[in-house]
């Protein structure tokens, strides 16, 4: 029998999933500057809305997982088409994640190391993590998060003397297109991926508690995101945030203990890399589950390795230039994610409601 996880573990997975990856580029802070809180508020509301939709659909079919629910509601072939669209989105997200980590390392820490070599190491790690299963991943995440939160708290405390200005003033001065793009960008890179967690909801012991625990995780993540935006904008400065490729990393570079002890950022980068791996592993795990269902694979063991190889090849051929990665992240991904991450759950909700009404009528 498949190992179950608790609703508590699922909530922490959601926090770890987003906290690790999203703090890398802070694109919405670059676009919206002092109005970044608008993107965060929108993101929280949209994330909780999406979570409610998916957990509602899941609660109506407690014995089925989301892929089986799709089959039941949409019919076998239409379900396959939509799941394939999701798989494409999953693959591009995952490759983007792999490339973001390797790009960060080759730009900041290991300039002479080949990105393919780094991507291979990450895919090997993530494939092994997928192989050992969700339960282990959930427990590992629980073991890592306290260290991450402690590191983050220490960073916050030591960056306070660097705060120079109120970064949320003057309010509402960013342009409307920037507000829209920034909000959609933040949402598609963070809580739109609640759909990915939808595929894991059938594995939670107490399904009724999924919504409250994940909603708390979403709120906590939003607080974390607002905090890092506040700290980064106020300590590094608006202009520098816009200039910097990795503003949050620049911010943690400012941390020093006393007069001489600097370079603390390496510790936080280590923890942050592990959390980014959590992000990638969850994406790859769900990809494996969904692809197994879509293609009707019975023997999963070699299939896990095949998926790992696919991820490696796809990543090593995608977003090769830094500019490609940024352009894709800002201009294409926010739009390409809307169908699989927003329209897909909404379709499921509408069909579930229609089905419920029909059942009530037939009674």
């Amino acid at each position, binding site marked *: 029998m498949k190992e179950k996880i608790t609703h508590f573990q699922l909530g922490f997975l959601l926090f770890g999933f987003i906290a690790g990856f999203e703090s890398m580029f802070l694109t919405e802070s670059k676009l919206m500057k002092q109005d970044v809180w608008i993107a965060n508020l929108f993101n929280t509301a949209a994330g909780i809305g999406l979570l409610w939709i998916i957990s509602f659909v899941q609660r109506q079919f407690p014995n089925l997982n989301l892929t089986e629910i799709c089959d039941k509601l949409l019919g076998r072939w239409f379900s396959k088409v939509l799941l394939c669209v999701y798989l494409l989105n999953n693959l591009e997200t995952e490759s983007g994640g792999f490339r973001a980590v390797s790009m960060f390392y080759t730009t900041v820490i290991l300039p002479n190391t080949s990105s393919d070599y780094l991507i291979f190491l990450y895919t090997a790690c993530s494939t092994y993590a997928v192989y050992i299963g969700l339960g282990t991943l959930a427990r590992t995440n629980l073991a890592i998060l306290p260290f991450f939160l402690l590191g983050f708290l220490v960073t916050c405390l030591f960056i306070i003397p660097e705060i120079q200005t109120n970064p949320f003033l003057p309010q509402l001065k960013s342009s409307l297109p920037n507000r829209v793009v920034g909000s959609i960008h933040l949402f598609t890179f963070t809580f739109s991926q609640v759909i990915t967690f939808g595929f894991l909801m059938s594995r939670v012991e107490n399904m009724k508690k999924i919504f409250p625990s994940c909603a708390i995780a979403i709120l906590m993540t939003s607080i974390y995101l607002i905090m890092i935006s506040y700290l980064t904008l106020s300590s590094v400065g608006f202009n*520098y945030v*816009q200039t910097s490729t990795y503003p949050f990393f620049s911010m943690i570079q400012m941390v020093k203990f006393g007069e001489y002890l600097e370079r603390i950022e390496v510790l936080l980068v280590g923890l942050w890399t592990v959390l980014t791996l959590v992000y990638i592993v969850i994406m790859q795990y769900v990809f494996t589950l969904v692809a197994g269902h879509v293609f009707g694979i019975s023997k999963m063991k070699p299939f896990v390795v095949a998926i790992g190889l696919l991820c490696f090849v796809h990543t090593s051929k995608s977003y090769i230039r830094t500019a490609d990665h940024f352009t894709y992240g800002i201009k294409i991904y926010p739009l390409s994610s809307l169908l699989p991450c927003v329209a897909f759950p909404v379709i499921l909700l509408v069909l579930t409601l229609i089905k419920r009404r029909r059942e009530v009528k037939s009674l």
Partner: protein
Amino acid sequence: MYPIDNLIIFTGRNGISQKRAVSFFLAALCLLSITGCSPDVNEISDIALVTAAAIDYDVVTNKYSFSAFCVMPSNTSQEKTSALTQWVSSATGKTPLDAARKMRSRVGKNLIFQHNKFFIISESAAKHSLFEVMDYLSRKREFRLTAYPIIVQGQASDKLKLGTESGDMLSNDLLGQVRNNKLSGQDVALTIKDFVDLFENPTRGFVAGRIKTKSSETNKKEFLTVTGGAVIYKQKFAGWVDGNDVLILNSLSKKKVWKDIEFNDVIHSKNGSVFSALFHEKDLEIHGDIQNGRPKMSVYLKYIASVEDVNKDSDVGDSRVILQMEQAASIHLEKKIKKSLAFFQKKLKIDVLGFSDYYSQYHSKAWKTMQKDWETLYPMIPIQVHVTVLFEKSGMTTFIKEES
């Protein structure tokens, strides 16, 4: 059932499987050894640390010169510095990178810039090519954001060759001077991060660090001293500011700049006495207003002070005497601040104090109309200065009787 869920290393009920734990640690050990395969590994015997760098620009040839003060890692501690293990390397090139790469390729060691704290930029580079220089310094991953870009009069590379009065390594001496700024407040320690952030602001200027050469009072040798500042406006060097004006600039900046500064000054009291005091800024409030479409500002400063020496018999234990001294000190500091503000507004005509930032943050509507005329509005802003001084301490003696 999916086999991907079968293999579990840590189980909630049964604890860690011994066999798995051993194989996990063995695998981790093997993985540790692969770090040696990385092409980013540096052998300690192959490296040399750069502790200060200088960038020059020749307007005639359009060429940059990059110089580095290098030290062998075994002798970087203050006690062990010796002439044998320190040297200055230099090369010229078409861009800052071109010059730096040429210099690095000629040196027999792998140069490490992670510990470099100073980038000394020549006046010529700051005047004619500051954008290129700052772009290079902020783009390069090896340069830490906490390093100080400092402008120097004349050539920069020459300055690396000067010795120090203390006999210590150049960068240690300069760092000591930056640290000792809390004793005078007359220099600016602007990091690359702050430099780049202010550099992009089109409406305001800012003051970066300055290095000057001075002759020693004990011998004829010339040494470097970090004092005063270099004004940068519209991404170019725009002039020098002396130490007294920098002190006022620091006093009117963000708290992190002034909170540790304790400067001394000589005050002439109304009763004819002259005394020295140490002043420590306690509070700063800057208010801006708009009257008839024109900005108007007020500055409130509060200092805690201590009496350090008095030229004649004055009982500093007497509150009337102290009140007189406080009044004299307040008037003196107000005059001093007004003088510096007049210099920034009327002579320099560059908003180095960031008043434009204040208006854009707190009067954003009015700022929209003021922004385009800011250059003409700024020199005419009336600024009221209010200083309060509180003498908390007066030393170990109340007064020494003077022979009549």
